């Protein structure tokens, strides 16, 4: 058992370090290629774009989302905004009506069917060259779209470009922790972009050439993670997905543990189920980075977190078990005295490996912060992220695996309802 534990631990640790080093080497190799757009950007070509905002009971946030789209620095006659009410039961439709007469905005109402049905309705109604989605809890930076289109103009192979997602006004520790996570994700996404291994085109402002859908078909329900499925489908067919680091979208993140838990449960559940659906890609040479790097590293990170958490639980159990035995045989003893002695400082290989992993994690966060022009290299949010996620992430990972086994889907609709509460 001990040998099994050691082999599993070192294998996971080796793979985790390998992945992080790969990102770091890619960063140093490509850092001069990271696009940095000027504040005022003029494009050689302004193609027609349709952006869809699918809504289910979003009366509180959708106005600001639409206004942020209206404030985009992009020719109004080239930008169509579709507001789609997915059978809301609140005042979302009334809010939509206020925008009805603004040129470029079209509103639609349909029966509740899930986010992918809204997107597919929009795909049927549009003929523009580019197509994108914006979640109704997100606001776009005025230059975001121009920067993405500039990347499309400069790279005719790019079939989809994903933005950099940032946390909108973090108000509590949980949202601050997510801020650190999102900043790190920007770095990782850019590196995956360089490597051709992006596996998700997230809801907030990922822009596609419409040809993608003409060629590959519409969105699928995909376990309520249609943004992962379409990305995997594109990778399967060799369609390039890139990342625009200075195309900022600010999103409202869950402000309570239970909301975060529900969101992540959906994401991880979707990831696992999509991985199962697309298992034919794994370790197949023709699918490149996604097959050999993105999917395996995603699975390794899930297994690693669960492994570390199980070890931790086992240690806590052992400690409590021994304490109970001790109290049982000799009662409570208050003679415990702590004397520092460096001898008892952990010098196991595991400890030094953890240091290396944490240094690599910190490097990822520092680079992420640098990419979004944060002034200080590090913030207290990093600490919040490490502490909070170490404790709660295993729960949604365990639950997601459990749900995957019994095929219990997480509902986008219910999650939206809970987010509004």
């Amino acid at each position: 058992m001990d040998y099994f534990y050691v082999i599993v631990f070192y294998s996971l640790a080796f793979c985790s370090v390998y992945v992080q080093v790969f990102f770091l080497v890619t960063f140093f190799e490509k850092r001069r290629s990271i696009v940095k757009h000027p504040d005022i950007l003029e494009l050689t070509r302004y193609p027609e774009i349709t952006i869809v905002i699918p809504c289910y009971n979003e009366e509180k946030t959708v106005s600001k989302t639409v206004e942020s789209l209206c404030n985009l620095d992009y020719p109004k006659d080239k930008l169509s905004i579709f507001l789609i009410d997915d059978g809301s039961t609140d005042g979302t439709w009334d809010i939509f009506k206020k925008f009805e007469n603004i040129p470029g905005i079209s509103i639609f109402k349909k029966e509740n069917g899930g986010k992918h049905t809204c997107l597919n309705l929009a795909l049927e109604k549009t003929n523009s060259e580019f197509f994108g989605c914006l979640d109704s809890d997100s606001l776009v930076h005025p230059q975001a779209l121009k920067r993405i289109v500039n990347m499309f103009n400069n790279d005719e192979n790019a079939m989809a470009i994903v933005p950099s997602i940032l946390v909108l006004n973090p108000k509590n520790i949980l949202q601050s922790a997510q801020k650190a996570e999102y900043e790190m994700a920007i770095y990782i996404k850019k590196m995956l972009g360089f490597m051709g291994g992006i596996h998700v085109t997230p809801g907030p402002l990922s822009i596609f050439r419409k040809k993608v859908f003409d060629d590959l078909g519409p969105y699928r329900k995909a376990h309520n993670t249609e943004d992962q499925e379409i990305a995997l489908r594109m990778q399967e067919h060799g369609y390039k997905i890139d990342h625009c680091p200075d195309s900022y979208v600010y999103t409202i993140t869950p402000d309570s543990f239970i909301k975060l838990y529900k969101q992540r449960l959906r994401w991880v559940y979707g990831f696992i189920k999509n991985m199962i659906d697309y298992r034919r890609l794994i370790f197949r040479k023709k699918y490149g980075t996604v097959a050999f790097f993105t999917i395996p590293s995603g699975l390794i990170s899930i297994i690693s977190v669960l492994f570390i958490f199980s070890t931790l639980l086992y240690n806590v159990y052992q400690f409590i078990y021994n304490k109970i035995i001790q109290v049982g045989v000799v009662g409570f003893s208050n003679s415990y005295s702590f004397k520092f002695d460096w001898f008892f400082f952990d010098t196991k290989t595991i400890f030094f490996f953890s240091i290396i992993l944490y240094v690599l994690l910190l490097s990822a966060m520092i680079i992420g912060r640098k990419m979004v022009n944060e002034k200080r290299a590090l913030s207290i949010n990093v600490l919040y992220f490490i502490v909070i996620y170490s404790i709660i992430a295993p729960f949604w990972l365990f639950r997601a695996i459990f749900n995957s086994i019994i095929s219990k889907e997480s509902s986008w609709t219910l999650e939206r309802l809970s987010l509004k509460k």
Partner: protein
Amino acid sequence: MQTTKTNYAKIFFVLLITISLFSVAVWSSYYFNTKKMDQLKAIEDKISLDLLSSETQFSLLQELSCKDISTTILSSELNSLADKISYSENNIGINNASVINLKKSYSLLEIKDFLLMKKVTERCGQKSIFVLYFYNNDVCDDCVKQGYVLTSLREKYPNLRVYSFDYNLDLSAIKTMISIYKVPSQVPALVINGKVYSGFQSVEDIEKTFPQLQSIKKNDLPKKDDSISSFVKKVVSPDLKTKSESSVSGSNTTTPAN
């Protein structure tokens, strides 16, 4: 369509860096563990010297009065050594050759201390109680419990001298003790003042069997100045004075590695 060329050079380069980092972690662990082993060896050498000094003192004192001799000063070195060996077993490895060797030396020191202190108490009529505790490192819940009981008793009765031995340690001296006292292989096993007790013994069991424990309670501790060392300072040749403070290894032990 995207075409991504496999960059084997990069894959190999990253592999090389990862292996280097891996090696750094393994080497760091090895380096610090070796340092720890060296430290343990140094502690053992010191205790060994102290013990030799105690034996010499005892030989010197044999012709003299016992009235000022006391053995209640605890050897913190031997205690802390037990803690550290126990920690090393858990963290460096129970099968690590260096750890096993240190444990053997530690057991020998215990036996020497036991023999010396037994002589001192016999000759001087002390009220000490000697406990030889045999355990093993396999799954043994009762050994864990027995360890707590003995630690607790030792705190309560500092004159209770507990010496713990790994039953399975490949050391002829331990095997000889096992055969002398006819210690059964079923651990935990205790030898208290020469009598063998097999299986778990609770605090109450031991207190009941040895009512004389009450007479060596903590508050009955003699003043520190009554120790052998002060006696040596007062009576014996001045040459021994420098060593005398540390030489009184009226040792007891913690119970390592359950």
